[in-house]
C-alpha cells in the first residue's frame, strides 16, 4: 500500500483529541455495570496532524467525479454541486434531533414536503415516502408494500418476475421480501419478451419489476402492453428508478401505468455517492397503495407539517427515523436550482451525451443491441477479447489514462459488457477524450496486448489479486 494504516502511526500516549473537563464529581459504577467495564480498547493513538495527513494522503489515492469522467453505467455519476453541500451544513437544518417536536422543525419538514411534491410531479405517482435509505432499500420497501397489499386483499401471490437484464438488487430485494423470483429472458431487441412474460404471468404473480429504459438504455416499446398484461392477472408493476435520468420531462412511470417505484436521489438528483453511500431511495406509489407505505408519513394540514403515525395498514418502519435526511436536503437543493425545465434539459443532455459516445464508439466495439438507447448503452468487448484483452483489461487500462471505467460484465445478457453512462454534466471534450482513449486502447490491444493485459501500470497499486483476497480473507488488522 502507498500509505500505511493509521494504526501504524500509533505511539503509546499520543493524543489527537480534546474534551472539556468533566466538571462534576465522579460516580461509583454500580455492581452490574462494574462487571461490564473493560480495561482498555485497542484504538490508534495518534495526533491530530497524523490524522489529517493520513486521510489526506488516502484521499489522494482515490478518484471521484471531481477528478474526471466516471462513466459507471446505471450509477449516474453526475457532478455533485458544491452549493448543495453548503445547504446540507446549515446548522439550523442539520443540527437537529429526530425526536424534537414537529413545531421546532417546520423548516425541515417544509423542505421534505416540497421534495415529495416534486418527486410526485416528476414520476406521476400519488404519494411518496422518503424513508428508504438507498435504492435497494426502496426496492425492498416497495415489495413489502406489494406483499402487504395482497395480504390485505387476501390474495396469495408468491412470484415476482424480473427480466434477466435487471439490476441484481431486484431479485435480491424480492427474495428478502419473501417472494420467489422468476427470471424472464429478453428478446433480441433487448426488451421484455412478451411471450416469455405471458408465460410467466399467472394468478400467483405479485409483481413485475422493471426499469425503463432498461440497463441496456433501451426504452420498452411495448411498455403499455407490458403493464396491461401484468394488471390483467392482478399483479403490480414496479418501476426501478435507477434510470430516471433518462426520462425526466419526457415520460413518467405513473403514466406508463406503473403502480409503484423507487427513486435514487444519489443518482438522478446529484447527491454525492460518498464512496459507496449514503444514498436515498424514496418510494412513490399510486393512491391505492398509499395506505401501505412505511410509517410515519409526512403530511400537511392547514397549520403545519407533521408525521402521520396513524397508519394501520402500513408495512411498518424500514429505518430508525425518517431516512437519509441529509441526502434529501441536497436533492431538494438540486431540484430547486435546476427547476422543471432544467430537469428536462438534464435528461436531454444525458441522453445526447450517451448517444454521442455510442455513435463514436460503435464502429470499434461491438454493439450487441442496435436499438436506439437513452442515457446509457452497452458495448461488448468480445472483439477485443478475441484479440487478447478482455473487458476487465480494458477497464484497468483506462485507469492508466486517469479515467474511471464503465460498469463491466453487466448486464449479464451481454458478454464482455461495458455499460457506459456519461451523464449530462460531462462536456464534449471529456467525451472525446474518453472515446480517443478507448480507441487508443483498442489499438494497443492489436499492437501490444500485453500492455493492456497487465494494466494498470500507473496507479498506486498494480492489478490486485482478488482471488487471493477471497480465498484467504484478511479483513482487519
Amino acid at each position, binding site marked *: *500500500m502507498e500509505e500505511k494504516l493509521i*494504526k501504524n502511526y500509533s505511539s503509546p500516549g499520543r493524543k489527537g*483529541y480534546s474534551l472539556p473537563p*468533566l*466538571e462534576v464529581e465522579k460516580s461509583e459504577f454500580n455492581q*452490574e455495570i462494574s462487571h*461490564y*467495564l473493560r480495561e*482498555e480498547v485497542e*484504538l*490508534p493513538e495518534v495526533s491530530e496532524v497524523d490524522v*489529517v495527513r493520513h486521510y*489526506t494522503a*488516502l*484521499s489522494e*489515492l482515490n478518484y471521484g467525479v471531481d477528478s474526471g469522467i466516471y462513466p459507471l453505467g446505471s*450509477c449516474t455519476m453526475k457532478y455533485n454541486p458544491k452549493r448543495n*453541500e453548503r*445547504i446540507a451544513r446549515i446548522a439550523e*437544518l*442539520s443540527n437537529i*434531533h429526530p425526536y*424534537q417536536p414537529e413545531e421546532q422543525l417546520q423548516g425541515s419538514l417544509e423542505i421534505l414536503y416540497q421534495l415529495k411534491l416534486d418527486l410526485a410531479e416528476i414520476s406521476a405517482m400519488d404519494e411518496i415516502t422518503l424513508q428508504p435509505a438507498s435504492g435497494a*432499500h426502496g426496492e*425492498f420497501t416497495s415489495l413489502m408494500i406489494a406483499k402487504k397489499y395482497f395480504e390485505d386483499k387476501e390474495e396469495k401471490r408468491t412470484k415476482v418476475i424480473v427480466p434477466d437484464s435487471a*439490476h441484481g438488487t431486484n431479485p*435480491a*430485494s424480492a*427474495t428478502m421480501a419473501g417472494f420467489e423470483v422468476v427470471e424472464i429472458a429478453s428478446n433480441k431487441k433487448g426488451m421484455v419478451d412478451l411471450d416469455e412474460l405471458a408465460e410467466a404471468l399467472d394468478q400467483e404473480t405479485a409483481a413485475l419489476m422493471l426499469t425503463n429504459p432498461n440497463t441496456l438504455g433501451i*426504452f420498452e416499446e411495448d411498455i403499455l402492453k407490458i403493464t396491461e398484461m401484468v394488471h390483467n392477472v392482478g399483479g403490480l408493476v414496479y418501476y426501478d428508478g435507477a434510470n430516471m435520468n433518462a426520462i425526466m420531462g419526457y*415520460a413518467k412511470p405513473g*403514466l406508463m401505468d406503473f403502480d409503484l417505484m423507487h427513486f435514487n436521489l444519489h443518482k438522478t438528483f*446529484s447527491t454525492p455517492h*460518498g*464512496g*459507496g*453511500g449514503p444514498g436515498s*431511495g424514496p418510494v412513490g406509489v399510486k393512491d391505492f397503495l398509499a395506505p401501505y407505505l412505511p410509517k410515519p408519513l409526512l403530511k400537511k394540514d392547514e397549520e403545519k407539517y407533521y408525521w402521520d403515525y396513524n397508519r394501520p395498514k402500513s408495512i*411498518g418502519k424500514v*429505518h*430508525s427515523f425518517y431516512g437519509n435526511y*441529509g*441526502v434529501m436536503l441536497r436533492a431538494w437543493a438540486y431540484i430547486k*436550482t435546476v*427547476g*422543471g*425545465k*432544467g*430537469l428536462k434539459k438534464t435528461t436531454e*443532455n444525458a441522453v445526447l451525451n450517451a*448517444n454521442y459516445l455510442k455513435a463514436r464508439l460503435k464502429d470499434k466495439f461491438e454493439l450487441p443491441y442496435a436499438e*436506439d438507447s*437513452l442515457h446509457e448503452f452497452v458495448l461488448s468487448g468480445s472483439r477485443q477479447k478475441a484479440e487478447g484483452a478482455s473487458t476487465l483489461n480494458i477497464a484497468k487500462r483506462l485507469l492508466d489514462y486517469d479515467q474511471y471505467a464503465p*460498469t463491466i460484465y453487466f448486464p449479464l445478457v451481454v458478454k464482455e459488457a461495458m455499460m457506459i453512462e456519461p451523464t449530462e454534466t460531462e462536456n464534449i471534450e471529456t467525451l472525446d477524450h474518453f472515446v480517443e482513449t478507448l480507441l487508443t486502447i483498442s489499438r494497443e490491444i492489436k499492437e501490444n496486448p500485453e500492455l493492456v493485459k497487465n494494466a494498470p501500470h500507473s496507479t498506486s*497499486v498494480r492489478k490486485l489479486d482478488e482471488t487471493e*483476497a*477471497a480465498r484467504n480473507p*484478511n*479483513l482487519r*488488522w
Partner: protein
Amino acid sequence: MDYISNTAAERNKMLKEIGIKEVEDLFSMIPEAVKADDELNIEAGISELELMRKAQNIAKKNKSLDQQISFLGAGAYDHYVPGVIDALISRSEFYTAYTPYQAELSQGTLEAIYEYQSMISDLTGMGITNASMLDGASAAAEAVTMGARISRRSKVLLPDTINPSYREVIKTYGSGAELEFIDLESKANIIEPELIKENIDEKTAVVVLQYPNFYGSIEKMEEISKITKGNKNIIFVVIVNPILLGVLKAPAEFDADIVVGEAQNLGSGLNYGGPNLGFMACRDNRKMMRQLPGRIVGKTTDIEGKEGFVLTLQTREQHIRREKATSNICTNEALNALMATIYLSTMGKTGLKEVGEQCYHKAHYLAKKIDKISGFEVANKDNFFHEFVVKTKEKSSQIIDKLLQKDILVGYDLKRIDEDGILVCVTEKRTKAEMDNLLENLEVL
C-alpha cells in the same frame, strides 16, 4: 441554473455526429402514448444566491440544538464531532467517488474501509465487520434474518427493552423473511434471564438484546448469553451503542454471535436521524462469513507483491448471486463509515474511554439530583449508563412542554410508546451549567 456543460453549438455538433437533427429525436422510441406532453410543473430553476436565501429563510423556521439544551437520545445521540472530520470527508476524492469497483483507483476508500472494519472489530471484539449497513435498525433487522438463515429456524425472541424503532424495523424485515416474533416484557427496565429461558424452544432461531438497552440499563448479558448457548443453534444478536465501547466490555466477551448497532454517534452528527451508520460484525467463521450481508474489504497483493485492498467475498452479493444473495444491500453508508474511522482515529484509545466516562459521570450526576426533586424519580435506580428513565408525578408531556419554553429538550417522551416517564440522555457535550439549568427549572415546575 442547470449543470449542462455543453453549449448549443456543441450540442449541434454532437447531433450531427449521431446523425439526427434535434434532441427530441433521441426520444422518438418513447411511444407517443406515454410521452409527457406538458412541461414538468416545477418552478423554474434559481441561482445560487436565491437558493441560499431560500434555504436560510426556511431554516429560520427550525430551532436547532444550538438554540436550546438537549437531553434527547433514544437512539440518536448528540456527541462531540471533531472538526477534522468534516474537513477530511470534504475531500472530493472521497465524497464524490462511488463504491470502489475499480480497486486500483480507489485505494483511499478501500483502505479507509479496511481501517473501519478493523476498528469496529476491535471495539466489538468480533472477528469480521462488514463495510457498513444503512442504519442501526436495518442492521439489527438484517442481523436477525441472517441469524435465522444460519440457524435454519424462524422464531425470534424480541425483548421490549430494545429500541422500539428497531423492533419495528426488525419486524418489517422479519415479515419479509417470514419469521415469528415473541415479544418479551421487561421488569424494571430489564429482561429477566428466566424469561428468555422460558421462551426458548427448538424453533428458536435468534435471541436479541440491546447493550445498554433502550432505557440505558445494562441487561444481564452473560447470564442470557449462557442460556442461549445452551441451545447451539441459537444465534445471539447484540445491539450495542459503539461509543460506549471505550468503557464497556466487548460483546465478544459474552459470546455474541452477531453484533450490530448505530454508529451515527461516531462522528456523523445528528442530521435529523440520517444519514446514520449501521454496522455489523460477526464471529470469524466460514458459516457466518458466507451469510454476512453487505460489502467487505480485504487486504491482498498486486501483481508486483505490493499490498493493497479490494472488495472481496462478493459471491455473497446481489450483483453476482442475484436472488440468492445474503441481502440486497448495495449502496451503504460509506462516507459515514469514513467519518467513524476518522472519529475513532482522532479520539483513539484514551479519548473514546474519556467520552464514555464523561457520559457516565455526567448522567449520574444529573440523575442523582433529579431523583431528589419531589415529583420525580429515576426508574433505573443506578443501573444505567448515560440514559435513564424519569418517572414524573405530573404528566410527562406537560413537563416536556414547560421545559420547552425554557429552551430545554428534557428527553424522549415514553408516551410515544405508551409508557410513562421521560428518557433522559446526557452526553459528554452537556456542561454542568446546562444540567444545573435543567435542575433549577425542574425544581420550580
